[in-house]
């Protein structure tokens, strides 16, 4: 049950946020949780390493079993608690396929976002190139357009099928991350509609990153 679960998390981290949304959707509130600070390097603390030897957040345990990869944790929660809370994976073939496709495509979105947002953090000064920054921005622009296209094709307002699903649990945090970092609301109307619509969903509202409420965002993505 929720009391046997422990989540160590960081504010604003999409992978952490995914698990928290899933826990809310499956009515598993009441889990043990601790907010840690990336800035203070707490993700490399012994407490985290004991659960996640990679020194990354989320560090999540279901009973004794560590499930630190956010997609793994979300799949696990949906499978184990299928009959409680929101059904995040439908029974039909086509629905399942669409959800799985979008869930794993999110890696491309996250990678390209991070190549732009964290360029200076990932690339030492001596290795930085304007040409790389330009290429990364172009790649992210193409990626964001792809997702805008996906949302243009759905009429339900969700990423896959007619209802809120695991695809939205996994992908929404990555979309919200783009807006937090200055993505233009006007340039991507369907994505913006998706973002504004889901930000009021109870599970998402309840788990909104606390630091996002306290501080303004950045504008590094304003030209994307």
């Amino acid at each position, binding site marked *: 049950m929720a009391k046997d679960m422990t989540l160590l998390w960081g504010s604003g981290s999409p992978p952490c946020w995914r698990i928290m949304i899933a826990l809310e959707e499956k009515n598993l509130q009441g889990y043990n949780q601790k907010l840690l600070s990336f800035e203070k390097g707490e993700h490399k603390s012994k407490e985290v390493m004991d659960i996640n030897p990679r020194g990354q957040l989320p560090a999540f345990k279901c009973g004794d*079993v560590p499930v630190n990869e956010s997609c793994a944790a979300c799949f696990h929660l949906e499978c184990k608690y299928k009959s409680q809370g929101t059904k995040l994976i439908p029974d039909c073939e086509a629905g399942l*396929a669409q959800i799985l496709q979008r869930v794993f*495509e999110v890696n491309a979105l996250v990678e390209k976002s991070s190549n732009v947002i964290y360029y200076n953090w990932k690339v030492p000064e001596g290795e930085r190139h304007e040409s790389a920054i330009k290429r990364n921005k172009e790649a992210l622009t193409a990626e964001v357009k792809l997702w805008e296209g996906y949302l243009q094709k759905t009429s339900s307002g969700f990423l896959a099928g007619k209802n809120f699903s695991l695809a939205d649990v996994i992908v929404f945090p990555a979309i919200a991350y783009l807006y937090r970092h200055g993505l233009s609301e006007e340039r991507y109307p369907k994505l913006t509609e998706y973002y504004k619509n889901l930000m009021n969903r109870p599970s998402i509202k309840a788990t909104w990153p606390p630091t996002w409420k306290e501080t303004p965002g950045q504008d590094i993505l304003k030209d994307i």
Partner: protein
Amino acid sequence: MAKLMSLLWGAGSPPCWRVMITLEEKKLQGYKRKLLSFEKGEHKSQEVLEVNPRGQLPAFKHGDIILNESCATCLYLENQFKSQGIRLIPDSAEDQAATYQRMMEGLALTDKLNSVIYYDCSVPEEERHDSAVKRNKEALTAELKLWEGYLENVAAGSYLAGAFSLADVIVFPSIACAFRFGLSVGRYPKLAKYYSLLKNRASIKTTWPPHWVASPQGYDILKDL
């Protein structure tokens, strides 16, 4: 069933290989398939773009259903054909969690491998730095040591998450790739044991990259890791 399935694939690509292993394990032989060449840029052909607008392989169809992410395809096949062939996701919740965990971690391994093996393909010449190559190799080394640790007790029937599972389907191709590119058997004995235990598994042997069979001598880019 398999007759309604089609796969566009490239040789030696771990994501393509994962899907092919799964199809074998689920007894879905007989699917339509077409081998395409990355060197000739066939992954960007109209034929692929119609199935996968990202111009990447694998590109998989089951009737009208399209799945281009290998993990998505493997999970879909296991789910739809649960009772056929080998069970790739165990029943118990704890074992499932361990399987999903290793599966997803497998993506980190593949990324780090690619950043070393395909450095020159993905980074234009003017942007390449020895310091980046060194850093990527260090990250890959740390990653491989993690997997060496996960396989501490590897034995026949005891793999990444117990019995052969989707975790092995996802991860084995990358391990095989690492050895193909010169990873030291002596320095990674558990990985080497895992590799030698599974390389003769029917589904893996049948789908072994054809050009690896034709020229068993690989490369040595990873020999110093």
